[in-house]
């Protein structure tokens, strides 16, 4: 948002490969490049939305940022400090600065622990608070997420999805992190509860000065909460920029496809894509642009090398050799 501010979270050339290696007999095992060459910067107080469909690598990216998955290549820097060595130490090194909220709120809570035990865990292990401090902080956290204090002695199965997600948010905030990675935090919730949780998240960001990395497949939700957006496809960021501009006039054909596919009140069903259009095989990625197979604008040079993310002015960038025209989403296809 503010180019002058130093980014609080920065990644450069971040990549993750799963599988690979050889079997006992020396045959190669298939390799999946879940995330490739992701370079992002998030300014303090900003919300960066990450959108993309299943399998695009957005969750793997999120998990690398909090240290749950060690990156195969590239670096992560928090507050200007590179975390490459800390990454080997696991999430403990990250926990006080950056925290994570899970998609499925009930599976993220241990069914055999009370809410108090769940909320106290980060206080004990991350900031080593003593008992009275923990008692105070736990009460404060319940208040922050608008849950009644008597819920503390209950077990996760007694809560609805929305309430469980509030507990998940409270746990993430317990050790007072400055960045929160939210991995589809409202997709498992009903729409009426989804709005409550989204509003709570916006409110907390302002009140506590948090920075969010908000991952979602729902463009409307990202638009409602984020300032900037990064669109991912097949492990790469294909377009970034301010949300309203990217959504009003996408430069990458994939972004446009996503936007036109979103169901909207008052629109008739029409497929904006060839029916056989599918993701490429992740174990055998195409040499060029991964979207070439589905792209209406594809030309020969698209299939030779993956297009780099090039700046397109006004804080925007797109990884497309033949980007859509700068204004007007309905430009010539």
């Amino acid at each position: 948002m503010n180019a002058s501010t130093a980014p609080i979270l920065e990644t450069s050339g971040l990549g993750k490969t799963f599988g690979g290696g050889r079997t006992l007999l020396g045959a190669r095992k298939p390799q999946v490049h879940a995330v490739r060459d992701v370079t992002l910067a998030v300014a303090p107080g900003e919300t960066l939305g990450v959108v993309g469909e299943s399998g695009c690598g957005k969750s793997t990216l999120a998990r690398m940022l909090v240290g749950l998955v060690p990156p195969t290549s590239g670096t992560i820097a928090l507050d200007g400090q590179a975390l490459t060595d800390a990454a080997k130490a696991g999430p403990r090194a990250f926990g006080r600065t950056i925290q994570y909220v899970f998609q499925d709120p009930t599976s993220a809570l241990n069914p055999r622990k009370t809410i108090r035990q769940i909320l106290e865990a980060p206080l004990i292990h991350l900031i080593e608070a003593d008992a009275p401090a923990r008692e105070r902080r736990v009460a404060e956290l319940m208040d922050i997420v608008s849950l009644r204090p008597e819920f503390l002695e209950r077990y996760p199965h007694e809560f609805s999805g929305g309430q469980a997600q509030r507990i998940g948010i409270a746990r993430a905030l317990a050790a007072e992190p400055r960045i929160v990675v939210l991995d589809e935090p409202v997709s498992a919730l009903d729409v009426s509860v989804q709005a409550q949780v989204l509003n709570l998240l916006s409110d907390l960001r302002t009140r506590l000065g948090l920075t969010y990395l908000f991952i979602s497949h729902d463009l409307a939700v990202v638009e409602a909460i984020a300032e900037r957006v990064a669109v991912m496809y097949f492990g790469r960021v294909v377009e970034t920029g301010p949300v309203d501009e990217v959504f009003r006039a996408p430069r990458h054909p994939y972004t446009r496809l996503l936007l036109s596919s979103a169901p909207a009140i008052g629109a008739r069903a029409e497929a904006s894509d060839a029916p056989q259009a599918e993701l490429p095989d992740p174990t055998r990625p195409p040499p060029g642009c991964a979207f070439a197979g589905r792209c209406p604008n594809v030309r020969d040079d698209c299939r030779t090398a993956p297009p780099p993310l090039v700046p397109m002015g006004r804080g925007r960038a797109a990884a497309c050799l033949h980007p859509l025209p700068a204004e007007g989403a309905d430009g010539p296809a």
Partner: protein
Amino acid sequence: MSAISTSSSAGDAARTPERPKRRSFLRLLLRNRLAGLGLVVLAAIVAIAILAPILPLADPNATAPANRLLPPLSEGHLLGTDELGRDLLSRLVWGTRLSLFMGVAATLVAALLGSTIGLVAGYFGGRLDNALMRSIDMLMAFPYILLALAIVAVLGPGLLNALYAVAIVNIPFFARNIRGVTVGLSHKDFVEAARLSGMGHGRILVSEVLPNVMPVIVITMSTTVGWMILETAGLSFLGLGSQPPQADLGSILGEGRKVMLTAPHVTTIAGITIFLLVMSINLVGDGVRDALDPRLSAGALARPAPVTRIARAKNADDAAPPEGSPALAVRRLSTRFEVGERIYRAVNDVSFTIRRGECLGLVGESGSGKSVTALSLLGLVPSPPGVIRAGRVWREGEDVLSLSREKLRALRGGRVSYIFQDPLTTLHPLFTVGDQLVEAIRAHRPASHAEAWTQAVALLDRVRIPAAADRAEALPHELSGGMRQRVAIAMALANEPDLIIADEPTTALDVTVQAQILALLDELRRESGLALLFITHDFGVVSQLCDRVAVMYAGKIVEEGPTQAVLEAPAHPYTRLLIACVPILGSGKRALDAIPGLPPAVDRLPDGCAFAPRCPRATAACKEGEIPPVSVADRRSARCLYAGEVMRAATEGSAA
């Protein structure tokens, strides 16, 4: 709650009430009569074994050659004596005590070592897992008795060594069982959440994983302790366990063997005792396993019936078939889940009509009863605990719920078919999609395999699957999510239905794929005049596909009408708020209009309008009595006392 999770929405309908009463473990155990019997026998045996030192028994080791081999019921020796004249009853009681102790001790040792290995291997995975589990496999590759003999041969005969041998032999059972469960648990979100909370691996294993694995450890212990008693008895029988004069049941049996022909009572009595002990332990063990199984503890021991239980009161006002010949007419349908004393009113007094070729969208949040409504139509709600308490489902002048079981089965997947949310769970993983289509076709009409195969390929072609003939040979996991859902649609079309019930068919799909599937459904229904009941939580999807929409809340249809009219000017406050809280693409960054509060639990519905506690318009009148649906326009109704005003306000609001 999990009792009715056969359908996810049925589970939601019975949304966790606050503070549910768990059935006590003992009550669950005793409901299994055999386990109860086992428990009584075992308790008696254990009590006698524990009380052995204070019972008025003869010295088990006092020999009396004069009284050797007395038959049972001899004076002073109730069960007779053995070849050294020792009192058999006393030896038996002390022997049982020893066998029981050995079995339990061996189980504890095996459980401790085996579970630790299983936990560590399952949690850390990779090379450590490989190394540990391969050594366990090696242990299992020997016949257990040979292994036990080898261990005793190395350590020398003796009670303690026999105990070690039996424990070591049984470590693999624990290690393998516990590892399997741990592997599943160690990838759960809550374990990762614990890592993010700064916990180390050791602490996570002990405080996060172990409590969740404990039931499995207990089950494995309860089912193996009998086995271990037998094994120790076996070693003692061979003279490698307890050494004379001390005797466990195995050595009593072994000593009796020498005089089996002259005095069969020694072996017989020892054998019966072993049988009673092990049998009672095994019965109790099975009972414990069943009682600890979460699916069973919720109260569903029986397999669901093929048709939902229908227990309707005779009711005159719904008995007349509807006018015209709609594809489906539902009248005053009520479905409940009756779990013990709790009654979950999942569907209450639901009526709607789908005309031929029409698409009705049924919209609601989870737990609103929309899926249970859909499943009730053809009696597919699992019973127990589901019961249809009232209502009729009219089709072609007949009440579907009154049809015979055969007719109902012919209807299912025939003229009326279903499409579910996740095709990966509805398609069989081991058969090709072509074979599954063939099966669907041949279940309803006679056709040779070759004919049916040709039809199957044609169906795949009809749902726009490219290279249909090749794809028919594919297994479900080889297809993408969108392609699988196309196969599910092809299956629904297999027997030329006139009504398809689609339960959230695009919820699990990505938006670009969702757009494709919606377009396909729309084309198919226009092409073949299909009626469609489309269940969803997404107003955007409804507006793209459906002619009419019905909105459900807490088991009731609160508003129904033509899609566009309802979306433009909702007549029920819930519809209005539900539409408002969905973010719409293109309206920028903003706070959303959330609905305060939570939907009510369907086992404790309030009087009057269920939405009243969350409704900004609610008055005292809303909270009493039944609120009937009122007509607000042509073919449009809402269950709200202020429907007209709400609608007018919406119209003015959108005009302004």
